[in-house]
């Protein structure tokens, strides 16, 4: 079986791997590299549970081949916590009860991290529009919006992750 060499930097860790050209990025992250925090919900790019940041931009890793990410910097949920400190977005989700089963949460948080990077002070409507590519079946979304709002406030007030 044909395999290709790919190099990926995930949460700052460099990985040189040899994979089948057909392997999706999400399966490589989860199966080959052990970053299982990124989840799979639909395999069609709709639910967003597999969202990671690639070179700083959110991508749905079930719609990308691993080879398309060759040389890229990937950030996953495992990279949000730094030096033992939760990211404000993680604190927001927990404090505002922005999760129930938690399955969509990693993808939701990665999208939210990017959203706040693009727009540090979003309105609730902007948050709702910004997260429409991430489906959650548990929360009804309201507390997720609250979580992102709360994270934005924290980051404004000098959080360490700005």
């Amino acid at each position, binding site marked *: *079986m044909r395999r290709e060499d790919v190099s990926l930097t995930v949460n700052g860790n460099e990985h040189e791997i040899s994979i*089948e050209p*057909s*392997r999706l990025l999400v*399966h490589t992250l*989860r199966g080959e590299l052990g*970053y*299982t*925090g*990124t*989840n*799979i*919900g*639909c*395999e*069609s790019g*709709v*639910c967003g*549970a597999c969202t990671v940041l690639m070179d700083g931009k959110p991508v749905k890793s079930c719609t990308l081949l691993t080879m398309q990410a060759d040389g890229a910097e990937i950030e*996953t*949920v*495992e990279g*949000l*916590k730094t030096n033992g400190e*939760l990211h404000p977005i*993680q604190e927001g*989700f*927990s*404090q505002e*009860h922005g*999760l*129930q*089963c*938690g*399955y*969509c*949460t*990693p993808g939701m*948080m990665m999208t939210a991290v990017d959203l706040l990077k693009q727009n540090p002070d979003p309105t*609730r*409507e902007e*948050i*709702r*529009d910004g*997260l*429409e590519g*991430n*489906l*959650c*079946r*548990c*929360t*009804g*979304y*309201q*507390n*997720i*919006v609250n979580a992102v709002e709360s994270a934005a406030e924290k980051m404004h007030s000098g959080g360490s992750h700005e």
Partner: protein
Amino acid sequence: MSETAPAGKYFGKTVERKEDPELITGDAGYVDDLEEPGMCHIAILRSQHGHAKINDIDTSRAEEVEGVIDVLTAEDFEAAALPTPGHIPVIWHFTDFEIPEAFWKRVIVGDRARYQGESIAVVIAEDRYTAYNARDQIHVDYEPLDAVVSPFDAMEADAPTLHDEAPDNVVFDWEEGDAEATDEQFEAADHTFSVELPSQRILPTSIETRGALATYSGSSGKLELQMTSQNPHLHRSLLSRVLDYPEHKIQVVAPDVGGGFGSKIYHYADEAITAWLAMYLERPVKWIAPRSEASQTDAHGRGLAQEGELAIDDDGTVRAVRVTGHVDLGAYVSCLLPALPTDEYWGVLSGPYDLNAAHCRIRGVLTNAAPVDAYRGANLTDATHLLERLMKTAATELGIDPVEIRRRNFISADEFPFETVTGMLYDSGDYEPALDRALEMVDYEALRGRQAKLREEGRYLGIGVASFIEMSGLGPSAICGMLGAQSGYWENSTIRVHPSGTVTAFCGTSGHGQGHETTFAQIVADKLGVPYDDVEVVEGDTDQIAHGQGTYASRSGPVGGGAVARGADKVVEKGRKIAAHQLEVQLEDIDFEDGAFAVTGAPDRSMTIQEIAAEAYLGHDLPDEMEPGLEETSFYDPENLTFPFGTHIAVVEIDPATGELEFVRYVGVDDCGEQINPQIVEGQVQGGVAQGIGQARSEAAVYDDRGNIRTATLLDYGLPKTNTVPELELDSTVTPSPHNPIGVKGVGEAGTLAAPPAVVNAVVDALEPFGIDHVNMPVTDEVIWTAIQESETGPGGES
């Protein structure tokens, strides 16, 4: 607060969820995150047709694919030395009619497929990609048969027959209530109104699909199945029956579970296949459902077509309700299905209202579609929708305000406990304050004024009111047994105080997002007077937890919480005996408060529960005949069901030119009795409302005439999104339940019941000027636009 559940240090408070740290860091372990040494993967070939004869299955090309371990068909399962997996049992029959095994789901079929997605063959490979690639190499010689996807078409004389045992495709014809008394009420009534609601199916759609990882040790005979489960002990029992394998050699574990909404209650073919293959190969086997397969095979929800009538007098007094229903069973009868559109549905068919009579007749009809079973709110949602649509229709026709008509028919607060015409004993209730609070929040009078004013400007505001009753907290066991249940509906909890005084609560419920680790710990911490951080809750493992019934039907709070509270009370009683013995006083002279056992009137003579725990394990100085250790178990069977209630009001504006709907307000007031954790209660209501809005606005599992599912991916199935669910304004009243020790009622399904009629009534209310008195779910913008086009005053109408 009631005497049954005094507000505590933790009970009744919002505290940080114990579940969250691992879920927000990626440390969670869902089934697909788990691995076992030597694990292989399977891909299941499923019928492409809704209905087809299978003439031949050629697996030879698939077997040649590099990395494929084996390819099995029904024939291979039958030829194996292991017993062939049996049918999936129906575990709720009727009192006078057992569902024959002929209608039970099959694990794998080799001769004929009756719905798209039915299992035909399995590929086992070293790698998931290989398994799926090889699956595509299997050639099946199908002979397509005529399919039928509507329960009404299935009852036609020339319809294809799904099972020879039901030539007319009708599996059951069920009746409840007093037909004669109901007829008399209808004859005596000033008015009767009717509404017809079709059999919309819903996909439960947990974002995590179903999956399983099975391991088997040939030497010990131990079979372990880690799976997406809402009730591991039930799955163990069913698996034991299906595989004909001893229950004590099976361990079922639900690791972190990514939502369920009912779909992870029942037993399916796929998990049985995975377990069987682990035994067959003596290798760990993993199966994960791709989304399109989940949509084809997860039990769908609802499927009940209803024709309902209301008998009502001029003054708005409702006399009776009468229903004829047809439930679209799908191709087989799923595990719990018989209970849902019948006993459960019937139980709340009088809603929060005091009626004189009711009657319903429900026929269960086979179709070439996936089987249906419980999904959040089960068919309670259908009863609520029917009743609230009838109330809206009656209010409009009689010229009575929709709020007033409900108020006039509510059961009064002083009538509880209240026996309904459907034979339920409502525990407690006070419906008007919840209604009043909702009206106050939405400023109802002003809103009606605004609606009138906007109509003059050609703008169409709609106000939809829905009051509801939820039936929660299954059991009690004996009553469920009388209704045909094949299992008990108690709950089990063991409270183990460790020698150091920290505590583990082992619970037979099995949470999947609801926050049990948090809420049960709150109960235990208060009962034992120990810090919240000193309590750990363990669920979801049949080897760790003695027994349990699992999590569904909003039973975890009232029944699971009841078991936890009872177990903790027993611990305190044992501790009291030890304290009395060691402090050398009579038992009745020991007071227990805030974790300390003290002599009455001499608070300095006391022992902490931590000290008692140490003594209990030390065992040097215990009362005569007392066994060492500090651990107690409760098999708690509730006194009765609980009946949460509330009123939700949706306010929408519709653009008549485009049919577009915009939510203006959504207000909900719920009463679920005592609240263990208000933030979690509100979260449950929010999630439920979103699911209800989904059903109202965009969700429907659709089949074409050949039995092909047209909504198999999330590209074509309308799940609610962040920007399609409005801001919800929620509040609550608190009427404790006397039916369990902590006064809680359960809240998981409330929003799912309330939102569909609130939204649909709002749409109908908005469209009243067009002469539109009904719309079917899902009420998409297109449905609204079409209704306006076809209305009397619309562009396509006469005037």
